[in-house]
């Protein structure tokens, strides 16, 4: 799985709480006892989502106006940091990304 598996310590770009994110359309999730397996058909990478709740957060990111709103709605406050780190790692490996509307919004801002 070397070269396919995302190593747990991958340096991550920080996700931004104020942006709306979505799961990459090329990513598929498969529920597993420990959470879910995520596979990216584009970069052929595999990721382990280590809790069922993380899988839910990832799958429904796009339903919330911002990443922070999603965390507020779904995740106990004490775990927000952990989840933000996990999501940042997922963003680095392109499993999640800012929603396309966010891109447009940013562009009109400049």
């Amino acid at each position, binding site marked *: *799985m*070397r070269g396919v598996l995302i190593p*747990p310590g991958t340096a991550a770009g920080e996700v931004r709480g104020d942006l709306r994110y979505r799961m990459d359309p090329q990513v*598929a999730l498969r*529920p*597993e*006892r420990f959470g879910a*397996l995520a*596979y990216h*058909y584009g970069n052929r990478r595999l990721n382990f989502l280590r809790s069922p709740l993380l899988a839910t957060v990832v799958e429904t990111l796009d339903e919330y106006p911002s990443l922070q709103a999603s965390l507020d709605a779904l995740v106990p406050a004490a775990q927000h940091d952990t989840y933000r780190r996990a999501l940042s790692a997922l963003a680095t490996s392109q499993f999640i990304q800012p929603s396309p509307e966010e891109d447009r919004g940013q562009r009109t801002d400049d």
Partner: protein
Amino acid sequence: MANALTTELKLGLDAPICLTWELTYGCNLACIHCLSSSGRRDPNELSTAEVMAVVDELHEMKVFYVNIGGGEPTIRADFYDVVDYCIERGVGVKFSTNGSTITPARAARLAATDYLDIQISLDGADAATNDAVRGDGSYATARRAMDHLAAADFGPFKISVVVTRENAAQLDEFEALAASYGAQLRLTRLRPSGRGADTWDRLHPTNDQQVALYHWLLDRPGVLTGDSFFHLSALGQPLEGLNLCGAGRVVCLIDPVGDVYACPFVLHDTFKAGSVRNPGGFAQVWRNSSLFTSLREPTSAGACASCGSYDACQGGCMAAKFFTGLPLDGPDPECVKGHGEAALAGVAAGAAPSPGPGHSAPVRLLSRRR
């Protein structure tokens, strides 16, 4: 964290992460280390309709991708229909080939297909080294296929090398070759499986070569290994990957007649879990077969228990132990601490299980006519 994940994975998954599917035992080559002893097609191989039904099942189980091999899978007349159907159903395909059917036209069509990876097998950085294992002309054939894929702009295909005593000194050359094509290098481990049982003794890398390989891999995280070499992690810093024997837990094999084995390197009745042709199909075998259930139970470290490296090395490869006649709960025959060699010395001649004749083509006798 990695260890907690390993513990989880040992309990098995709802569906395999890495499913190898050998579509035919037929092959135009007769490599002396062939893990599936391929040569002749088996008259009982899955029909096109049966193959497509398995694809439907993989789709339902959310198997993300399959590794298709053989034999030489591309000699099946329905091969490209199968590939197209897999992709249509969201099952990505990586297929292994010796390159003999990759014409320029075929390469162009492959380049236009998404979610497809191709792996060309090459076991020497030069014709002499490669052809000694894979047969006369096979180096030129593989290079020609690579040329065609590159000319068609296929993108980063994979060059897949089984590391042997003969080619272990050529790793830099393989790396340069892959770079020259914009390809990815993939190294895998030689196991004493199939015809490899007869050649393993003289072809498996020496311990010095293993140590050099370990450091070479640590320096090159971009080189793929399919998790082959986790027994080398006993040398220190673990190699990147899952570092466990995935047989029946995260890995399995569907063979050309639909039999399901714990992994591609254990084609032996002991490790046959069932058949996709039986009621319940593949899902039934994967989820409920008694063999896979038992492989997911906690294993004992056996003779490895006193070794400080067991967490990293897990005692190595089950297939390598089985076909060399070693106990499954002890050291790997290529244990980097030398415990395998010692154990091998105690295996009586002829005690190792025979992989059987498999589907090797009959030996061609010299014709006396003319």
